[in-house]
């Protein structure tokens, strides 16, 4: 009969995202309920002002009970102490602190605030090592969330 749960919820999220997008967020490509590409613009008054980034969301059939896979893609991956050069993001709400009431919009807001509170543009200290060993899916990484301040 009807669409599965994750597709029904995603179609509602998409409608809402198109109508009230969070600041700096635009939909680049959301033609199915598997992969979405969103644009994220660095907020004015922050280190990322004027920069444009691309985010890729991969949803599994257990969304929203399981978190989506989220990473930065494209030529410009923000230089940030919690973002690896392969696009992987070290943010607890995407992994062990995921809650099913979170949405694509709320993830975008978390990322936006993570970027905005950054004080110096640099890669994580273990970047070189991490990108050599990391799997394609950041959800397979055993994240250690050492810094709660950023």
């Amino acid at each position: 009969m009807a669409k599965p749960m994750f597709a029904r919820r995603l179609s509602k999220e998409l409608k809402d995202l198109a109508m009230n997008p969070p600041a700096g967020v635009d939909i680049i490509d959301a033609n199915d309920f598997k992969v979405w590409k969103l644009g994220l613009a660095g907020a004015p008054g922050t280190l990322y002002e004027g920069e444009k980034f691309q985010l890729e969301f991969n949803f599994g059939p257990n969304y929203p009970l399981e978190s989506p896979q989220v990473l930065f893609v494209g030529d410009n991956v923000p230089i940030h102490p919690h973002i690896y050069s392969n696009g992987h993001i070290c943010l607890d709400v995407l992994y062990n602190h995921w809650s099913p009431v979170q949405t694509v919009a709320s993830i975008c807001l978390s990322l936006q605030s993570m970027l905005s509170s950054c004080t110096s543009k640099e890669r994580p200290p273990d970047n070189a090592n991490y990108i050599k060993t990391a799997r394609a899916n950041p959800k397979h990484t055993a994240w250690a969330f050492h810094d709660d301040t950023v």
Partner: protein
Amino acid sequence: MSSTLTADQHKLMGNEHFKLKAFDEAIAEYSTAIVKDPKVAAYYSNRANCYLKLEKYTMVVSDCERVVELEPKSVKGYYFMGKANLELSQPSEAYAMLKKAYEFALEQRSSFTKDIVLLISEAKKQKWLEEERRRIAQVSETYRYLAGLIEGDFQRQVDALDTTSEGYQESLSDFKVDRAMRLEQLETMMQRAGAPHEYAKPYLSHKDSLSNGTGPQSSPNPNAATTTPREVPDYMLDKITFEFMHDPVISTKSGISYERATLLEHFSHGRMFDPVAQVPLTERDIIPNRALKEACEDFISKNGWAVDY
């Protein structure tokens, strides 16, 4: 050779056919199993599932009736029956069956629970549509009758007029104004009674042909019936699925309500916390939110469209 096989072996063969989507062959095996042992509920429910796939809904219902006779708490029996009732456009029957299916599915922790909730919403919507159609038909019927009376009055007045008299034109236009006014009043009344404008339209055309376009025309806003915003209060939507809630439960740790089936599934992913409040929460810490459930039921019975919101 079939005579040497047991009823259960026929069922297993039926299952193999079912997996390969050979539903007619599966039905034949289940039927043989039933002949050999007519007291096993699973033979009927498996056959009912085949009939569902083949869209033979009356057969589904009769097999399911047997299932619930043999196994009064059969989730599948009530679930398949409710599904078939829906397809047969019997939403009230479907609703009754699915409510039982839901009750037993919760008890037995059936994996069908979520699907049943979706179907219950669908049944509620169908029930609402059915009532809506009945109401509109009734209102339209009343409209047609009353408009006919107004039209009849007008005709009698015109017939009584002396076409050669001096004031003929003046009286005629007076009558037309009067008729247009009364029709307009009737229309407003009907719209208040809830008949969408488009249902009234077919009965309005004849008055225009009579008035030759000279009399004052009532031109109500064609969107009048559709301008009322269709919005579902956020508190009636599950915070996890964003669906209209059917069986809201309240977290005693936070006071926040969720749809029971989705919250239980959230727990089954090993996440023993309140999704919004992010505090520890288990199945023992939730209780039904009866007031909200009543509010939801009341709302959906008047706004069946909310199911697809």
